[in-house]
């Protein structure tokens, strides 16, 4: 078995995660509160995932990812999903150049580091799948050429939970591509007071680039090295298996409430997200607290509930809470 020097790893993490303070400080200039959302954005960024945000309009979703992009000195694109959007509007297309007499590549907004897919459920399935394929494969083919998407590459998609008319719900298989689904809520009273004052006074000062993309890529490598004991691995698998076979964990009352459980991608995402969370907490090893901290965001969109559950007003949150409270912590 590979020998790991946790002490050395901890020291390395202390060094490699130093940029987090800088980043938080810089982003904090434009965003008040929403620490949970920013932390999840970092988890997705560090573990090469993508994030689906659900929240009412006006919660600084766009501002958050724009600020993150600016602070990391990367390119940012915002795609507003509409019913008449076409895959080429996202990926790009080949355009005929009359002067040169040939086709030239016109790259779409997906060729950026940070992408905000605003209201992703407003576009039809073919457009959604075009983006989701690019997210998964991290390359796009235009004509005969395949273009690799530049790293770091992070898609933050948003969904508005209150206006469902004229929307195209993301199928389960496509939602599964998002590492995290984060629900964001309104800011606290004091936070909102600061937001109000800041905006009335003329808005926040511009975000300076404080971190290079290379630092992020290096941090990603370090995140992979975060030690995960086999007890933690078992804990993660226990949680995922409890979503599939609750009776195996003596949670029989969930059996009729669950239509499907987490996929193997859920196990991978939970492991990655736990490592990234441990990294953010400046630790070189994963503890059960890390797993529990990200479990809701990893599983929320990967657990299907039955009609009975809906009729009883039981949500995915309730099911995940029950599982976390029943599965033994190592």
């Amino acid at each position, binding site marked *: 078995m590979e020998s*790991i020097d*946790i002490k050395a790893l901890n020291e390395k993490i202390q060094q490699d995660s130093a940029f987090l303070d800088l980043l938080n400080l810089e982003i904090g200039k434009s965003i008040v509160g929403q620490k949970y959302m920013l932390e999840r954005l970092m988890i997705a960024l560090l573990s090469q995932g993508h994030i689906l945000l659900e929240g009412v309009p006006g919660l600084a979703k766009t501002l958050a990812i724009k600020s993150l992009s600016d602070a990391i000195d990367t390119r940012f694109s915002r795609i507003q999903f509409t019913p008449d959007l076409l895959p080429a509007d996202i990926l790009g297309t080949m355009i005929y150049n009359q002067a040169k007499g040939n086709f030239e590549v016109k790259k779409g907004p997906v060729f950026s580091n940070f992408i905000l897919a605003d209201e992703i459920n407003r576009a039809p399935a073919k457009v959604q799948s075009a983006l989701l394929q690019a997210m998964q494969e991290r390359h796009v083919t235009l004509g005969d050429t395949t273009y690799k998407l530049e790293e770091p590459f992070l898609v933050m998609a948003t969904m508005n939970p209150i206006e469902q008319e004229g929307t195209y719900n993301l199928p389960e298989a496509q939602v599964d591509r998002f590492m995290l689904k984060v629900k964001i809520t309104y800011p606290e009273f004091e936070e909102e007071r600061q937001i109000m004052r800041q905006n009335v006074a003329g808005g926040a000062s511009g975000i300076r680039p404080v971190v290079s993309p290379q630092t992020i890529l290096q941090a990603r490598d370090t995140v992979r090295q975060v*030690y995960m*004991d086999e*007890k*933690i691995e078992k804990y993660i698998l226990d949680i995922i298996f409890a979503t599939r076979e609750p009776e195996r964990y003596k949670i029989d009352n969930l059996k009729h409430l669950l239509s499907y459980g987490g996929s193997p991608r859920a196990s991978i995402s939970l492991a990655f997200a736990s490592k990234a969370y441990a990294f953010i907490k400046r*630790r*070189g*090893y*994963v*503890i*059960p*607290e890390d797993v*529990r901290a990200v479990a809701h965001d990893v599983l929320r969109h990967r657990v299907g509930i039955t009609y009975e559950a809906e009729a009883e007003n039981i949500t995915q949150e309730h099911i995940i809470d029950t599982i*976390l*409270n*029943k*599965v*033994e*912590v*190592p």
Partner: protein
Amino acid sequence: MRYHLKYHLVHVAEKCSRWCRMSAFIVFMLAAFDAAAQSVSATTKEKEYQIGDWVPVDFFVSAARNVKVAFPAWKDSLTASVEVANYTSIDTVKNGNQSEYHQLVNMIVFDTGQVYIPAVPFLVSSGSTTDTLWTEPIKVHVAGVKIDTTKDIKPIKEPLKIPYTFREILPYLLGGLLLIAAIAAIIWWWKRRKNKQQSPPDEKYLLPPHVWAIKELDKLKQDKLWQTGDVKSYYSRLTDIARTYIELRYKIPAMEQTTEELMQALHKGIIKQSLKKDLNDMLVLSDFVKFAKAMPGMSENEQSFEVTRDFIEKTKQIETEPGKNGEKKK
């Protein structure tokens, strides 16, 4: 000559007439003899009956002893208005050369007015000859129920309750007994199967929590795990004992909680803060060992053991004999 012929013709005619009269007398006598040898009759005691009453009809046949008599096979009814309720067996009495047969047939008439009980055929056989003898029809008067119009109309009477006979009850009784036996057999089989499946009750639920925990600590000490280099197993068992004790003692789901959550659950009102701090240090150190490959020194291993034992000793719930008022002292 003519006179002589006339006289002769008159004489012959007289002779013939006498002969014919003699023959007719002989035939009449023979017929009278036969009629006296075989006779049938049907009689009723009364001529007046009430509707629905039994009308007992006595059928009598008298025949020579060497004559076979066949009574009719009684059906449900004789005519549309005369029904056969029941009948007795045929009573045979020998009287000299004659045999007398009696059968009482109870009939019911549901019509009012003059009703005829029809003629009934009886077959009499002597040697190769068979003759049919018919009874005379009987006229009876069937009266309806007399209604006293001066009195109030009474409600319809309930059907008569005829007590069940043992023969009628027997099949149900046997069926019930069989059903009870089958249910008892199923319950016995199910209990036996359950008992087979159930492992013997865990000792931790039988003993007081502190007794069980101290016993387990003694076993852990005897196993000398950390002394043989298996530090991780040592701390895993130590924390399991501590968590199980807390779960049993304080009814806190400690096995399903992280160290942080457990410390929050053990708030001020439950245990002393000094005890809580020592327990927290031990659990945090255990987490290091379990999840971060930490290798504590000998003194730390022993101290962790002592902290756990001390925690159990100082928080144990002592149950004494019930006091005067029946309450238990803690």
